[in-house]
């Protein structure tokens, strides 16, 4: 009898736990549908950010976009760019380091207000988040040991070589679908930094990473300085944008205007020039 009671109790508790989960999920979805229906008339998102007086910007450290300089100060192209845009919007920027894998959750939980960290625009992301006007271009490049830089120039030369790229990245897309890599063996790893580590340690011959990433990591004095980019071949240009919560139409419009204004007064170009990214800028002065 006692045992039966225990089972019943345990069952009941589990049921309440799960019921609780179900409830939260449903209330959540009704909330979001409310938001989408009301977004046409008034944008709660901009009011929310404006009331706080600060825009929490989700970043990861990644040179030359957002990184710590020798004095331990946060700096980089995106850092300066975002600060200037926030000045235009009349809110204070607050940089919050996040785990890149949880960026969408952070955005929806409102623990951050935007992602500004060399985020590649994809159809999938456009569906789930509000994406700004593309402001910068990026491309995929091949990185190999410096002594092999002249070797991998044709598809035939890649026969027997191992190519490595970050899982689900644009680099992986290239390495798997471009005819150039047809005769090579492909391996995927969980980050671009690890792709470089594979090449450095000799477990792979070529890493396909994005160009902007290669600027920061392959500089002199780094552990990867004996790796080099194969200059005369690049693939799949992609575009960077700022990601906001979905349905934040007003914030998005204000953000796009502010970015254009910075391009018009030449400040954006100045910042890009400082980090050697001027050629990649997509927003031009009108």
């Amino acid at each position: 009898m006692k045992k039966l009671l225990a089972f019943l109790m345990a069952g009941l508790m589990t049921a309440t736990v799960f019921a609780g989960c179900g409830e939260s999920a449903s209330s959540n979805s009704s909330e979001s549908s409310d938001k989408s229906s009301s977004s046409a008339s008034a944008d709660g998102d901009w009011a929310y950010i404006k009331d706080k007086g600060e825009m929490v910007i989700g970043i990861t450290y990644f040179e030359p976009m957002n990184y710590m300089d020798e004095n331990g100060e946060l700096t980089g192209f995106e850092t300066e760019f975002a600060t200037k845009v926030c000045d235009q919007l009349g809110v204070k920027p607050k940089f919050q380091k996040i785990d890149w894998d949880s960026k969408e959750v952070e955005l929806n939980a409102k623990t951050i207000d935007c992602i500004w960290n060399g985020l590649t625009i994809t159809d999938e992301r456009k569906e789930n988040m509000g994406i700004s006007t593309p402001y910068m271009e990026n491309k995929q490049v091949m990185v190999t040991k410096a002594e092999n830089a002249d070797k991998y120039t044709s598809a035939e030369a890649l026969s027997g070589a191992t190519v490595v790229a970050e899982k689900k990245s644009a680099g992986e897309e290239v390495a798997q679908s471009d005819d150039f890599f047809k005769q090579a063996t492909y391996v995927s790893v969980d980050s671009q930094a690890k792709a470089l580590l594979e090449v450095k340690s000799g477990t792979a011959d070529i890493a396909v990473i994005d160009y902007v990433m290669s600027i920061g990591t392959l500089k002199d004095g780094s552990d990867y300085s004996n790796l080099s980019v194969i200059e005369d071949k690049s693939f799949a240009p992609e575009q960077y944008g700022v990601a906001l919560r979905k349905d934040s139409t007003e914030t998005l419009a204000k953000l796009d205007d502010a970015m254009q204004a910075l391009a018009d007064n030449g400040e954006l170009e100045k910042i890009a020039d400082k980090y050697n990214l001027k050629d990649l800028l997509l927003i031009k002065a009108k």
Partner: protein
Amino acid sequence: MNQFLNVTEQLLKGFGENSLIFIVTLVAAIPMGLIVSMGSRSRFFPLKALTRTFVWIIRGTPLMLQLFVVFYVPPLMSNGSFNFPRMNAALIAFIINYAAYFSEIFRGGIESVPKGQYEAGQVLGMKKSQIFFKVVLLQVIKRITAPIGNEIITLVKDTSLASVIAIPEILMNAKDFSMQGLIWPLFYSALFFLLFCGVLTLLFSFIEKKLNYYKG
């Protein structure tokens, strides 16, 4: 050399976060675990069922997921109007998780003391509370030092999991260096854990020696 100092400083800063989580978790989870273990041994059925379910859920789900739940579920449910600061969320998740594990170690320890010890106390005319505190407890402590030490050393390394809710702990800082083209800080960070665990190991073997007296 300058770079080495800079990396060391950043890693130390990160390890400060790890140490904070470690100390607060330890101080809070041990008493909480004791309370939970009392619940698990209770003869009052609803209480026992409640604590058993609690232990089942906490031990049955990954700590990484629990960190996510504590930090992200409140703001997701309240549409962003409430969330714990990152560090507090981490501490809550760690304390609850470790209290569940500690409670089982305590329960095992208490139940492993032979019945004869209680009976001996009764023969001497001691009260129930006297028997527990004067006869049983120290034997329990002696018996559980090894498993507790094991759990505590696991805790040292588990603190790195806090990086999933973006607490700038040592491994996260080390990974940032690899984005800047420095690989060695990642391996260097192992040294901090090794030293910390080394000190704990020495401490626990000392404690065990001191407690040999109470070997039941």
